[in-house]
């Protein structure tokens, strides 16, 4: 799978492979055998953490499916250009991230992305705070394996210094919510926001285990 990433196939294909391997892994877990957990990925927080690696990894499976859906991944690209559309192609006209994640010069996100969705098909979806992660905290989803993404999400150095509380709060962040309100003609993430939030909190509060790399 790693090798596949290195070749950088089309993102649609990549997603397919990621999901495919994930399901395979889950299959193994379902039999309850050969369960391998990276101990270091469990975060220690005071609040309400009841470690349960099986539940945690299961919850992360759902989290991962949402985060790797176009509605979330498109703004967490591997490069400095966001992705676009249900097939996660590079955003037309190649807007660049910029230092603050809000674009550069004449190509700032908010030049097209309004505070609200623009009505009609094929128009820019909107949010007052529309942006990519900033250049010093890119929080890349695109191409990340479940293991990599799980580790990255809870690593304060990579997640914008978010602790457990802030991570949980982040499920209700404006831009996260925007993933479920992207205007006409765009597919929703595979779970509802409520389901996602539940999985997210479950994952975090059961120890935020990262599924082991196959």
């Amino acid at each position, binding site marked *: 799978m790693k090798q596949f990433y290195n070749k950088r196939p089309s993102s649609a294909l990549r997603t397919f492979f990621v999901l495919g391997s994930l399901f395979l892994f889950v299959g193994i877990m379902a039999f309850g055998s050969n369960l391998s957990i990276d101990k270091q990925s469990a975060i220690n927080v005071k609040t309400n953490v009841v470690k349960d690696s099986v539940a945690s990894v299961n919850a992360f499976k759902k989290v991962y499916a949402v985060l790797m859906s176009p509605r979330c991944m498109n703004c967490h690209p591997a490069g400095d250009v966001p992705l676009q559309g249900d097939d996660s192609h590079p955003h037309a*006209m190649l807007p660049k991230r910029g230092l603050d994640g809000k674009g550069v010069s004449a190509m700032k996100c908010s030049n097209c992305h309004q505070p609200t969705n623009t009505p009609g098909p094929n128009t820019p979806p909107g949010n007052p705070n529309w942006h990519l992660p900033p250049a010093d905290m890119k929080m890349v989803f695109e191409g990340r394996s479940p293991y990599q993404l799980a580790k990255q999400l809870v690593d304060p150095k990579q997640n914008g210094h978010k602790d457990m509380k802030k991570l949980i709060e982040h499920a209700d962040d404006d831009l996260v919510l925007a993933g479920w309100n992207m205007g006409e003609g765009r597919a929703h993430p595979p779970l509802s926001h409520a389901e996602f939030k539940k999985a997210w909190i479950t994952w975090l509060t059961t120890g935020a285990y990262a599924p082991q790399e196959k």
Partner: protein
Amino acid sequence: MEKTSTNNSRRTFLKSSLLAGGGLMIHFSGLAKFALPSGSAETHLIQLTEINGYVKISADNMITLICPNPEFGQNVMTSLPMMVAEELDVDWKKVIVEMGPHDSVKLGGQFTGGSNSVRSYWRPLRMAGATARNMLMQAASQTWAVPIEEITSKAGILYHEKSGRKGTYGEFATKASAIPVPKDVKLKAVKDFNVIRTSQKNVEGTKIISGKPLFGLDYKHEGMLIAMIHHPPAFGMKLKSFDASAALKMPGIKNVFSLKLYEDGFEQAGFDVRSFNDLLVVVGKTTWEVMNARKKLLVEWMPAGDVIDTMGGRGGKRDVIVPGALENTTAQLQKMREFAKKPAQQLRKDGDPETAFKNAAQIIERTYDAPFLAHNCMEPMNFFAHVTDEKALLVGPLQAPGLAEPTLSKILNLPADKIEIQMTRMGGGFGRRAYTHYATEAALISKKVKAPVKLIYSREDDTTYGIYRPMYTATYRAALDSNKNLIAFHVKGGGIPEHAIHANRFPAGAVDNYLAEGWAIPSNITIGAFRAPRSNFNAAAEQSFLDELAEAMGKDPIDFRLELLKRAKENPVGKNNEYDADRYAGVLKLVREKSGWTGAGDKKFSRGVAAYFCHNSYAAHVVDMTMRDGEPYVERVFSAVDCGIVINPDAASNMVQGAVIDGIGNSLYGGLTHKNGVVEENNFHKYRIIRMHEAPKTVDVSFVQNDIDPTGLGEPPFPPVFGAVANALYKVHGRRFYQQPFLLSKPDGPSV
């Protein structure tokens, strides 16, 4: 209206007015209201004397030159008046240029298309300048009572050296206008040109960069309403019924109605192409209100079934059946494959190609396909109309007022002299605006609502309600003998709904045994001219094939073409060969020199070369390609063009550079597909247009220097770009590309 000054400093507002006596032509610009800057302090009236349709002179020697042809970016508003100025002998920097109204008596054909503006006006406009100058000199000769031979001119001033007298053109304009137009006036020798062949800036440059109203969409008129058309969602559909009650309740909405473009049996002329005949129209106060109300229409559409178009024209009246099927792109391709196997119309035959192919040691056969293309003019189709029972005023972007007028006259039942057509600057044309059903629609809407109306197409309307470049295919075959000599050449081309084959063009004339055939599949998808019609496909297919052929023969692609051209010059095969083999070879040699072509390619770039002849001009390109972020990128291009005398060199280079970029974009990304008759690429999010970062870093343009009368330039550099890109793609990928757009196509392996 605000006139255009060539030096961009005189922003005087002019209006011609009636002068008493003197047999003067009266000129009044009907566009006056159009560009009238409200409350402009610069406004004042100036009397203009019309010497002829192209030349007007004020008493204080302000020279106004009239551009006859519509401007869509090919810069005729500068280059055509330059030709008048050259012979008139005026200071170009002080000349005012104005777009003429439609007036075929005074201003000639007025057709922007076929790269014909400069070519067709080359003599008339120089004659207009030269005769006007002669008339002014005659007037001075009479006034001063000196022989005309002793009078000289310089930059708008007449001199009689012997007596030391001088006077401006303006002083003699009134008198000159009464003098009969001389028949035999000598034109300047090419070597004496001092306006032509010097680079002059776009006369509307300042207006463009300051946002002045110039385009059809910018036109305003007292009491003007806005109209939009709701057309069937798919080719092959028509209106069944509609409920406008919700739309009519929307703010600003005046009227909703259905409209028939042509009555049954209406004899369509060649440019009266109609995509849909039953249209739903929403009329209101502002664009946004009309756009919103249109969304509230409840409409039922139904299959149109087969439709009969009654075609008029020279061949007499005939009925053409337009099939009603809802088309799909995959089925279209499949159908083309089936038709390609059937016998086709023979277009040209030299020698005995059948026997030659039978005896061939090697046959190379390749098939090329290209999709429908939408013009995607940046300014969507629009037109203003104010039609009353007595007369009609039409203002907007169109390439051929002379073609629009007879249709308007028939449909509005008004004599031609009651129809005034004014041409605005066009935000692109590319052939699209020669088909002015949108002007007819605007006229019918105005007539119906009894008000001045501007019809506006949304981008989606523009793309899905188009007059497209047809879908094409062609199979090329070449027969080689055992020594790898080319002994026969065969092209069989087809398309929906026409084929692209120019049977008498290269390599016809260069191969002993030659066969060209064509076939077509009828369709309800409307098609028309698109920048270098047919050529834009031929150059891609034929020039790719020649590249592959050269490789099979072990020859350098340029050398191979030059060998064929040598043959065509020294011992041409057949008759009616359209091209001049020397000039064709000339651009290849020039591009070879400029690009430093060494045959085997380049260390840094994958190189492709192609050349083509069309619209009486010759163009060749060398395209230097790399791979960048997984996509082919044309980084550098060398272009060589022979269009005879280049009127305005810098602007001509600009146009060639633009044609190259347009060609790269369309060959790599361009294409329009259909699903159940619906156009799938309805806006730029799906219809990919080349952008700045995808354009080459340099396009080095060279013109062959000669004194041949000027020929076309807007189109000729465009087609060979496709071939050069295809050939560079082969070098970069190591495999050939046969289907456009190349970026989406799956290259087939060699089929031999």
